[in-house]
């Protein structure tokens, strides 16, 4: 953990950290869901279910897009602004595990 990062982050920065965690996990989550077809043999199923598979894949796709959309909204500003530590005037109840990500 870098020494110079503040120990206690302001609520906004803390939230941002957790969003970074989420955005890092998102592709792994997506990869697992999209690898489901590995367990699937559409040619051998008694009933044709390609349409269902198609709907499933597009649904996962859409979920990923929506998740990425909501995370990018929160993270785009973080690309420029530095993190702010808790200052005396702000709430300090955001927790003390800054930098866990």
């Amino acid at each position, binding site marked *: 953990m*870098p020494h110079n990062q503040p120990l206690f982050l302001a609520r906004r920065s803390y939230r941002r950290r957790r969003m970074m965690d989420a955005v890092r996990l998102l592709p792994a989550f997506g990869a697992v869901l999209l690898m489901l077809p590995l367990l699937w043999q559409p040619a051998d199923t008694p009933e044709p279910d390609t349409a269902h598979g198609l709907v499933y894949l597009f649904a996962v796709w859409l979920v990923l897009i929506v998740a*990425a959309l909501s*995370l990018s909204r929160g993270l785009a500003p973080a690309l420029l602004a530095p993190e702010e530590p808790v200052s005396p005037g702000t709430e300090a109840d955001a927790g003390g595990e800054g930098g866990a990500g």
Partner: protein
Amino acid sequence: MPFNILVAVSLLYVVVLFGVAFVAERRARGGLAGWLRSPLVYTLSLSIYCTAWTFYGAVGYAARSGLEFLTIYLGPTLVFVGWWWVLRKLVRIGRAQRVTSIADLISSRYGKSNFLGVLVTLMAVLASTPYIALQLQSVTLSFGVFASDTPEGWALPDQGATALWLAAGLTLFTILFGTRNLDANERHHGIVMAIAVEAVVKLVALLAVGIFVVWGVAGGVADVLARIDASAISDWNLKPGRWAGLTFVSAAAILTLPRMFQVMVVENADERHVATASWAFPLYLMLMSLFVVPIAVVGLEIMPAGSNPDLFVLTIPLSAGAGKLALLAFLGGFSSATSMVIVAAIALATMVSNHIVTPLWLALRVGSARAPGDVRGIVLMSRRLSIGAVLALGYTYYHLSGGSAALAAIGLISFVGAAQVLPAMIGGIYWRGATHVGAAMGLITGFGIWLYCLFLPSFGADGLISTQVMAEGPFGIGWLRPQALFGIVGLDPLLHALFWSILLNTATFLIGSLASFPGPMERLQGVAFVNIFDQSSGPGGWVKSAAEAEDLLSMSQRILGPEEAQRFFQAQAAAQGKLGFLPDPTPDFIARLERQLAGSVGAATSHAMIAQLSGGATVSVQDLIAVAGEAQQIKEYSAQLEAKSDELARTARALREANDKLTDLSVQKDAFLSQISHELRTPMTSIRAFSEILMEVDLPDEMRTKYAGIIHDETRRLTRLLDDLLDLSVLENRRVQSNIGVANLHDLLSKAVTSASNTRPDRAFVVQRDAASEHMPVFTDTDRLLQVFINIVSNARKYCDAERAVLRIEVKKRGRIVEIDFIDNGSGIPKKSQALIFEKFARLTDTSHAGGAGLGLAICREIMANLGGSIDYLPGQGGAAFRVRLPLKRAS
């Protein structure tokens, strides 16, 4: 649809694109980039990922292999939703290091190794050429569709000619907008804007065809889903290996394809655009894929058996009589093909020109120093030639392969080729241990396997690799069979090549890196790439547990400046006997570095920074307080300095002046006392000597009278001197009692001339006056004024050295001031003495015939000051000249 209309529409579309590019370029130059550089445009420009291969080929792919085509879009989706990992870092590095291409990225990371640049460039050209050919082919084919399927029944004149015209037109467009200028950032506003427009066109076209198919031909969503399950597609064979492998390779390709790197990293105007693209680009991909399966299913259903599913996007609307929709679809396909070719040509040309042509040209030009402008011209020219060459290669490939079926698979083959850069790229940005030896080994290995196992066999049986080699291996070595390396048979050829190339590529990259030692430049670049975020978030972001020389150098460069830091490090390395390398971080070296840094940032800061890097010591609270204190002091000090330096300069000037004045005064006081002493003692000497003579001896009467006379004269001289001193003292203290009266100036001057005639009465002395001008009343202390006049006239009588001395008195009235000039015809006063004459005892010549103590002019000056006027020496009047200025009425 008549061929001419089709051509006319295509041309019109191209003209519109030219216009868009031109306007965008103009606006960008005028500093009006604004919305041209919005996240939306960035996302749309990424759509060059969807080439004609997507636009036409995805439907064919789906018709043949079911849902497998989706992997090509799911891979990039994962990369984009996971943008925080790789994309963000790539873009930051690209911007920070001014990376111009993927070859430049690799070359730059591994110590600016041009060998790696050339290697990646060659690989990229080789992998992209068939892909460009594929685009030319798709456009040509789409022309052909209109030719054969229309009632008008025209035949496509010549496929080769169409492709040639297309290649030529694209070359022209790319050169026009791709090499207008040499931008340090390699950004092309016009082209990016044109691509964004094309992205919209192809998306709208594909969506329109899809909507037409689902709601026009079929009976809505439910019907389509039912049709899917009923169709042959439903029985597609999902090969898990291919599913995973293709997802991986497409994810890799979106990072490593030269054209994708160009739009994603090089053309990126703002890092925040990546955040938007993280969801918007997957959305674009999803929309592009949405109707692929329906179109394929419906196409298979309604089109005659044996028709090419790759062209369903065109043929379904055509057969349904929707000519305009077909035209739109044609434009969509045209857009997909052209945008890919344009960007690929720019990206490849940049690489070829930067890593091959320009270095070669410079190497050949060694010795003949030429102006930088010349080099610019050469670079631009080599860009243009490279663009032409890339498109010529594409066309040649298309021409030679004759539009063979081999092209259909070239998309994936190209992807696998591009993916070979992945280990070197990811290793380079995450692992500081990656070396250029490892990168070169990995790239060569992976690329060699790709060539041997995938690219060359793709030319078909007896194409570039003979059937015999394919079946038995080179020289009959079985385990080297291109599609069964190490004797493992039965793998899908693509997966086989992908598996072995990426595996061995990564392995050799790792082994090579671990076994080799990086040069100083490489280590520096390694730090810069891997720690890109730490570096830009300010000092102190060092995460390493132990100090490494490059960390220290990198930090020192920021503090001391690159040159100074490098000089210091080189000197230290030389001292350690490691000339040309970085010094080892010995305690001795670190201590010296700390002292060096302390000179710039303060000792506590320096210590804290070093401590952080060397890891052994933790930074204590005291350290931090000291750092903060230093920083505060420095901040305050510099602020104060700025404010004070002016004040200090002023104070120093004032002090210097005051000191000069004091020194002057002291010297003057000494001189004055010395002068007084001299002036008093001289007459007293005569008086004492003669009075003793008179007391002692008997003298003849005449001598006694003479000596008594001398004593008398000297006593008067003494008295006069004392009077003058007293006078001066009173005048200088401005305690003079003014005795204001009125007098005629003429009368005053006459009185002065008369009085002064006592001085050297023996001399012939002419005074020239103009009585008319002199008659005026003056209200002032007339006695004092008379004293001044007498003094001036006496001086003239005393000192005028002309044979026939003449004094001219001129009176002029200037407003409320009267000026009285006294000008004689002597030799005047030397320039260097002019400033002194008004000082006390400033007698310029000997006293013998002057008879005064040298206080006269000093007294005059004081008097005139008291009377509210002045007396000055007038230079350049032929003789000595004094000007008395007097207000007509003394303000009292």
